[in-house]
């Protein structure tokens, strides 16, 4: 039977998380149908139809689906579930919110945040903040799966799938959207950036964080991340947090500045291709995972780095 993949989008753009989850879905095997749910999402459906490996795009449009609210979105996914034996979503804040609700409504277990498809029913997933990897097999009549997208390459374009309209399920009417406070930035998104520069508590203040980290990020065209310590101290907004409880990233280049390397942070970035650590403390655990370490005061070397680029 076919696989239903939930498209992740912000109502205007298809997130590249979908293309990465698509790669995982393709490895599971079977025709992949992408569900694009929202209020006005035909343009997003067109984007999804171009992804290579998509057999069909389903568009569910309804005012109740406008803000990715879990209750109406789960109801719509469940209404389509009869045609699928596998339902997949990227482990984004939308996927993590809605998929367990779908699994419970279908009375099946969910496999969360897979990092490898071993076979169509067997997957690897991290536990204990990535300090152990479990191989799990599911024999459920329907497989509900979220995908840790940092572990999969994005599927390319070149497809031309058909786009079909499906009905939204009746809105359970349990919740409503009040407001969004989304950070707007011209910088790349953390989860899709090729280069990330992250700051830790050593930055000392929000002002210093802006003053020292951002110019280097601009020069590199990099996304900006932060350790939990820096976020908790108020130096950086929470959606910059990289780690077990923040975002899990795997860019080509990750530059950790003034970050000691707590296991919770390492869980979020240790799959990066190349890791650079800049830290005054040469004993900092971050150096144990860094390809290139520079023992130095970040306030001296970051301005120098900016000039050297």
């Amino acid at each position: 039977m076919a696989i239903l993949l939930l498209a992740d989008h912000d109502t205007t753009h298809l997130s590249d998380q979908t293309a990465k989850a698509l790669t995982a879905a393709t490895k599971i095997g079977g025709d992949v149908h992408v569900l694009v749910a929202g209020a006005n999402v035909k343009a997003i459906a067109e984007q999804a139809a171009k992804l290579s490996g998509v057999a069909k795009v389903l568009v569910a449009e309804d005012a109740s689906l406008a803000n990715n609210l879990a209750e109406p979105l789960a109801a719509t996914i469940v209404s389509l579930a009869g045609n699928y034996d596998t339902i997949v979503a990227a482990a984004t804040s939308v996927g993590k919110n809605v998929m367990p609700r779908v699994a419970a409504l279908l009375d099946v277990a969910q496999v969360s945040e897979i990092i490898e498809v071993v076979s169509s029913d067997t997957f690897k997933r991290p536990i204990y903040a990535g300090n152990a990897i479990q191989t799990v097999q599911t024999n459920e009549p329907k497989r509900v799966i979220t995908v840790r997208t940092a572990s999969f390459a994005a599927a390319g374009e070149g497809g031309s799938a058909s786009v079909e309209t499906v009905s939204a399920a009746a809105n359970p009417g349990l919740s409503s959207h009040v407001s969004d406070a989304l950070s707007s930035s011209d910088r790349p998104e953390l989860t899709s950036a090729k280069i990330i520069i992250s700051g830790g508590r050593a930055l000392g203040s929000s002002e210093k964080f802006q003053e020292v980290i951002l110019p280097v990020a601009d020069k590199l065209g990099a996304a900006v991340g932060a350790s939990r310590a820096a976020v908790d101290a108020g130096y950086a907004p929470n959606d910059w947090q990289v780690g077990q409880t923040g975002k899990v990233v795997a860019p080509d280049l990750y530059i950790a500045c003034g970050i000691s390397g707590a296991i919770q942070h390492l869980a979020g970035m240790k799959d990066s291709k190349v890791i650079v650590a800049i830290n005054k403390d040469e004993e900092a655990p971050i150096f144990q995972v860094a390809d290139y370490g520079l023992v130095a005061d970040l306030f001296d070397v970051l301005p120098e780095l900016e000039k050297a680029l």
Partner: protein
Amino acid sequence: MKILVTVKRVVDFNVKIRVKADGTGVELANVKMSMNPFDEISVEEALRLKEAGKAEEVVVVSIGPAKAEETLRTALAMGADRAILVETEDQVEPLAVAKIVKGVAEAEQPGLIIVGKQAIDDDSNQTGQMLSALLGWAQGTFASKVELGDGKVNVTREVDGGLQTVELKLPAVVTTDLRLNEPRYASLPNIMKAKKKPLDKKTPADFGVDTAPRLKVLKTEEPSGRKAGIKVKSVAELVEKLKSEAGVL
């Protein structure tokens, strides 16, 4: 209103876990165990709502081994009123946990259930969402702010792009994120008092829930390690290496 809070006994977050050499799991013998950090935040939030006069009673529930009583006593020492231990030595998957808590909720009739967004052992991030689905209630996951109103609750959620605020009809399930609050420590007198607070014991069978696992864990292994690289002496050397050796600039 009554608030129900779930707590789980897990390996303390400061412990560096060890994977068993035979691949059967993680070493749990003689390891320090504590309350799941997200559950501490859940207990704290419930207590703050009670202290603000918005709730009358805070009931904590745990599904786990006999020793999970210690975790419940910690929640009672923080200030919860009553505890329920659903005792089982099995590893209970999130779906079965949600079914048991649903049974508890049907008996207790809370107006709000607060659940940690994930347990730091299996990192599933499922139970709260599953519970609200089974109850047919609204869910407010990854909460960084909870404002209880009349018949409704506004939950500000941590989402990938920033924050989203939703309004949920009560009763509802809220799952807690790290920045919701800073949990209190239990004082010694409160730890003593907690020993006398009521704690009911139940079993999964009391709620008609089968806890047999649906997923089969084939093996547990160490993550592939990453070796330390080299130390560079200067910014110039770093840039040079990144360009010529790593090829990422």
